[in-house]
């Protein structure tokens, strides 16, 4: 293993992580809920009950407008999407189906679940990290 020290950004990563933790904290204290993004988006695809639609939609609106707000104060950091269209579609389908089948993603299981030491979320996070590492290894080092 070679650590790429030039790309390692511990301070901004920690600061961003604290902001995510703050969002999780506010969601829990004010709404009594888990800030799990796949669950919040997926809930819109079921028939949302009264009053359920609005908070999910406004949460998503906040996520969508975050880069716009950031852009008012500083240039947005670059985001590089290397995958081609076919890979993006395949990846999107897998992430969408998988997170709903597994009841959570990086936020619901990875952050909220581990924060509350949930055994289910520990297993889920270990599983998606493992298949994530394996997939990147296969794409970059086995079949490249």
């Amino acid at each position, binding site marked *: 293993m*070679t*650590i790429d020290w030039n790309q390692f950004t*511990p301070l*901004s*990563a*920690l*600061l961003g992580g*604290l902001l995510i933790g*703050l*969002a*999780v*904290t506010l969601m*829990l*204290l004010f*709404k*009594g809920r888990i800030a799990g*993004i796949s669950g919040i988006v997926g809930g819109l*695809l079921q028939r949302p009950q009264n009053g359920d639609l609005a*908070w*999910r939609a406004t*949460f998503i*609106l*906040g*996520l969508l*407008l*975050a880069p716009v707000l*950031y852009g008012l104060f500083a240039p947005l950091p670059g*985001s590089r*999407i*290397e995958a081609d*269209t076919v890979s*993006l*579609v395949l*990846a*999107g389908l*897998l*992430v*969408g*189906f*998988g*997170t*709903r*089948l*597994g009841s959570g993603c990086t*936020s619901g299981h990875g*952050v909220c679940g*581990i924060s*509350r030491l949930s*055994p*289910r979320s520990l*297993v889920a*996070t270990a*599983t*998606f990290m493992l*298949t994530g*590492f*394996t*997939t*990147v290894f296969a*794409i970059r080092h086995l079949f490249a």
Partner: protein
Amino acid sequence: MNILISFAVGLIFGLGLIVSGMSDPAKVLAFLDLAGRWDPSLMMVMAGAIGLGFFAFRFGRLRKTSLLGRPMQIPTLRNIDKRLVAGSALFGIGWGIAGICPGPALVLVGSGASKGVIFTLALIAGMSLFELTLKQHRQ
């Protein structure tokens, strides 16, 4: 109030994803590439988020209702089943292909990245496919 809080939480979450580097798929893939030039930054993101979240849930568990008077809805499931593991495994494969998970996908849409829009449309299609199979399974 309810809606305002949700909006603010989404906004803060999104800013966290941008500041942390999570909304840069190449950086996420560099974290997942253990055998390449490894970027451990994502460990720090998790440390920050879980570090705060740990105390939030310890405090939250003591309460019966939220500050807005809602019942606390912290998950209570404890069983580790095939569905949890299979779903998480599929999610990880998709995450490893593109380096994008659901939160960053929405941030990429908001920043106007056309590839982010393609991914997000496929993500919604995948979620809808799940709802359909679930419905058929129940019938």
